[in-house]
């Protein structure tokens, strides 16, 4: 009997709850009283920042977080000595000097969590813009979600060109995409053949089996077929490895057997370190190893491998030598280094730029409205003294048209700028010296 009573009581509670819900409306009820418009003073503008703060890429994700925090510190403080936009005065001038606050989310390198975090930041935290997510596979669903809410998304270091091929209206990207990077790589190789008698022709691609790696490999196919195949370059090997690989001996032995002149790597820091160790172990002797934006650009690569890191190369937005030559960037780097313990690397600078640009766009719009911010992002040219190009301008598809990288190579235990232009710090070194002599 008692149980029946309990069940009846529970059922009654459910009915009451449902009735209350039915009576509740999410729409605001129009008041008959005249509405007195009050000027709303924005004290803090919230922006979401989603990175892989735990999981396999956590070490990189945390550095990107520090980069965004550095931008926040510069925007909210007064740094007249740093000649960057938004640095001189505290906060957003056109919004009554409102402060910027970056709210961080952790996507754990999981696209589903990236989507959930995007929704949470938009709905619960009330962010008016988003930056992130490093992994292209996470940026994809996160930016698709922000599109639905009409919230601008400025991607810093995600490189898959598919991201800017979706026709999204609320998405822009700072970093060069993998299509641009691949073309840049082949031009560099042509330069090596023409000016340094490198005689490099055969290519192997080594890539992780996710959006970033697979798409980079597709871009090699595309450029070989359309342009560089006719110029003598030939792909002789294609090595895809699993993202949770704990040993790459089999892959490296395949590469050793094929003996390519050039290896293109699309790998994160952990995999890149594993491959580099295995290349040394099995004495793999390519002439050139070039990395897409990822593991090589992380200074941890040099720390992990020390001398064995020499002669690897890759596209990069910055290296310590470039930072040292730029006074304002050096000062910003001091703030970043105090947090992270290392200098800015390419991805960190790109995510720093994404934070600076979205803050500047909000300031220029003088509003936190998504459409107003996007209007600025799509129409204005942003000063970016922290980049070699000095400016950022987003095209119709949202891609930064000035995202030109430098080719960098580790020589003598330091990242050197080897091509192109007059700002190079060293000549490139072609061919890995015999491992037994190193």
């Amino acid at each position: 009997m008692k149980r029946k009573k309990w069940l009846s009581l529970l059922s009654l509670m459910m009915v009451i709850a449902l009735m209350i819900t039915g009576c509740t409306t999410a729409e605001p009820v129009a008041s008959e009283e005249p509405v007195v418009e009050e000027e709303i003073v924005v004290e803090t503008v919230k922006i979401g920042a989603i990175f892989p703060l735990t999981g396999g890429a956590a070490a990189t994700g945390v550095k990107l977080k520090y980069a965004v925090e550095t931008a926040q510190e510069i925007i909210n403080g007064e740094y007249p000595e740093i000649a960057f936009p938004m640095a001189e005065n505290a906060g957003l001038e056109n919004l009554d000097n409102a402060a910027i606050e970056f709210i961080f989310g952790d996507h754990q390198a999981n696209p589903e969590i990236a989507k959930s975090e995007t929704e949470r930041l938009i709905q619960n935290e009330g962010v008016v813009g988003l930056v992130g997510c490093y992994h292209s596979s996470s940026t994809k669903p996160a930016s698709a979600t922000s599109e639905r809410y009409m919230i601008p998304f400025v991607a810093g270091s995600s490189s898959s060109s598919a991201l800017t091929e979706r026709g999204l209206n609320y998405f822009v990207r700072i970093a060069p995409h993998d299509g641009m990077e691949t073309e840049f790589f082949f031009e560099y190789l042509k330069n090596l053949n023409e000016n340094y008698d490198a005689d490099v022709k055969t290519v192997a691609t080594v890539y992780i089996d996710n959006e970033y790696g697979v798409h980079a490999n597709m871009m090699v196919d595309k450029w070989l077929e359309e342009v560089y195949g006719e110029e003598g370059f030939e792909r002789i090997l294609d090595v895809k490895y699993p993202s949770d690989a704990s040993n790459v001996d089999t892959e490296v032995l395949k590469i050793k057997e094929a003996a390519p002149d050039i290896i293109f790597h699309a790998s994160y820091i952990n995999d890149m370190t594993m491959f580099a160790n295995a290349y040394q172990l099995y004495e793999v002797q390519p002439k050139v190893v070039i990395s897409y934006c990822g593991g090589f650009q992380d200074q941890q690569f040099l720390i992990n491998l020390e001398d064995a890191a020499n002669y690897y190369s890759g596209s990069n937005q910055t290296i310590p030598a470039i930072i040292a030559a730029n006074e304002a960037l050096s000062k910003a780097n001091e703030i970043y280094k105090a947090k992270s313990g290392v200098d800015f690397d390419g991805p960190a600078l790109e995510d720093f730029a994404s934070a600076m640009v979205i803050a500047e766009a909000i300031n220029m719009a003088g509003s936190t409205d998504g459409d107003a911010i996007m209007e600025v992002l799509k129409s204005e040219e942003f000063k970016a003294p922290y980049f070699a190009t000095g400016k950022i301008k987003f095209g119709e598809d949202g891609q930064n048209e000035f995202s030109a990288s430098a080719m960098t190579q580790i020589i003598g235990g330091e990242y050197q700028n080897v091509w192109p232009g007059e700002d190079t710090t060293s000549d490139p070194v072609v061919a890995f010296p015999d491992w037994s002599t190193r």
Partner: protein
Amino acid sequence: MEKSITNNKKMIGVVLLIILALPIIVQDNNFRHIMILFVLYAALGEAWNIITGYAGQTSFGHAAFFGIGAYTSTVLLWKFDIIPWIGMLIGGIIAVVVAIIVSYPAFKLTGHYFAIATLAIGEIMLQLFVSWEYVEGATGIMLPIKENGYKYMQFHPMNKLSYYYIVFGLFVITVITAYIVGNSKMGFYLKAIKENPDAAQSIGINVTRYKLYAMMVSAFLTAIVGSFYAQYVTYIDPFMVFPLALSMQIVLITVIGGLGNIYGPILGAAILIPLSQYTRIIFGGTGKGLDLIIFGALVVIVTIFQPNGLVGLFENLFKKIKKKEAINDGKLHDVS
């Protein structure tokens, strides 16, 4: 004969009503998102329970069926503009076919070997889809944006409640199926097979056939939930829908909740999903992995103090209350 709480239809109905009402009462989209995940994982646990909880065949590869469901409806929508409801059914049927093909030989294995075989099936599916260009391999598929409404299971701007109604409907289907299977002749056969397959065979039960039936039902239900997941997330890649971690999460939820019991997956999901989501929301942004530490510690505590699952705890409580009632009514003497 007194029915146990697990077979009490009214009790099940009340529990379902409460689950249905919560996101209607609490008008917070983040809470609704967590409720969607809770119901989704509870449904997956119910489906897994049929093959493992009832039939005693431990499967560590249910992500394979989940992924098949997700990919089937997605590819049919993306390439042929077939509505996800039909894709969901086709996905379920394909999962059943795959379940038959892989389970029939696997059922010849017993104990740990069957579990290892299912583990391998999940991983094989993952590698197949990573390399399969027709379904975009590792780069995944972004679902095309279609008209708003139930027809395409798409709601713009994000209407969580509509998604919730759909997943709740699927959840009810899995609960009803689990109830029917558990209380049917087939359910008793499965329990007999679980207790002692040789004895079951000796009394005339076709052991392989009934295990196969259980696997087919389980695979179908898992696949339709996978289809819903793809529509909800709007982007899938093989690492999202075929990972070992997903199979393990289904196992963890059901084992912590209680095996072979309708309430087990519900309780397990009700604890683990909000726990994992809220710890991530609160601590995830710190970048120190605190959310994972707290989540892991709580899972260990529950496992240590309630190894038979949370359902066991409630059943013991229920029995104690019944005993007290009986003592008070004078039907039993208190001998303590």
